[in-house]
């Protein structure tokens, strides 16, 4: 079974500082990996995805993530954060099921708080 571990439940940083949100996954087969962001009182929004190809993936709002197969990691990074990046971030891995599409397994989330 697939599983996702987000290593930090809360990450406080100062504005304009770099940030890394860590995600590790377990899987015995090839995976697809995602980062979603949830702003307060909203639904989840796709930040970026890794399906295949280049291991460095760029997403919206200046975020990027690097797929590392040997370390089974998919850490999210941003070189300089803004107050508006304050949100909860979820890492997810896809697994297949009958019917032809994928279902997602989510990590427990990391709350990023950007302070002035």
């Amino acid at each position: 079974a697939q599983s996702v571990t987000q290593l930090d439940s809360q990450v406080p940083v100062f504005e304009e500082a770099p940030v890394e949100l860590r995600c590790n996954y377990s899987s015995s087969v090839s995976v697809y990996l995602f980062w979603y962001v949830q702003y307060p009182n909203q639904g989840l929004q796709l930040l970026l995805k890794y399906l295949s190809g280049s291991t460095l993936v760029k997403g919206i709002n200046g975020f990027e993530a690097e797929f590392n197969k040997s370390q089974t990691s998919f850490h999210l990074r941003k070189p300089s954060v803004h107050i508006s990046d304050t949100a909860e971030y979820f890492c997810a891995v896809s697994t297949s099921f009958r019917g032809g599409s994928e279902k997602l397994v989510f990590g427990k989330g990391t709350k990023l708080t950007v302070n002035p």
Partner: protein
Amino acid sequence: DAGITQSPRHKVTETGTPVTLRCHQTENHRYMYWYRQDPGHGLRLIHYSYGVKDTDKGEVSDGYSVSRSKTEDFLLTLESATSSQTSVYFCAISVDRSDIQYFGAGTRLSVL
């Protein structure tokens, strides 16, 4: 928001009463999902559907049932609500044969 509407957005109910949450989509996507979100647990899959009348259980399906009689609507029913079902419920859709899921705005349910 990929044309997803969840209703109601907020609901307060009493233990033992039935509750139905509705997810409506406007783009005829085949795959639909119900999740619950709880602090410290992230999102957990309750049920999913891969077509009209084709549904299956997720990891936390006990106490929930679903129905999909039309492509555009996916209903989640709590037959007899319990306090442990107090949560935020999200519906999601998946573009056909794609791995990307799009989420609705959520329904906040309180069971007293």
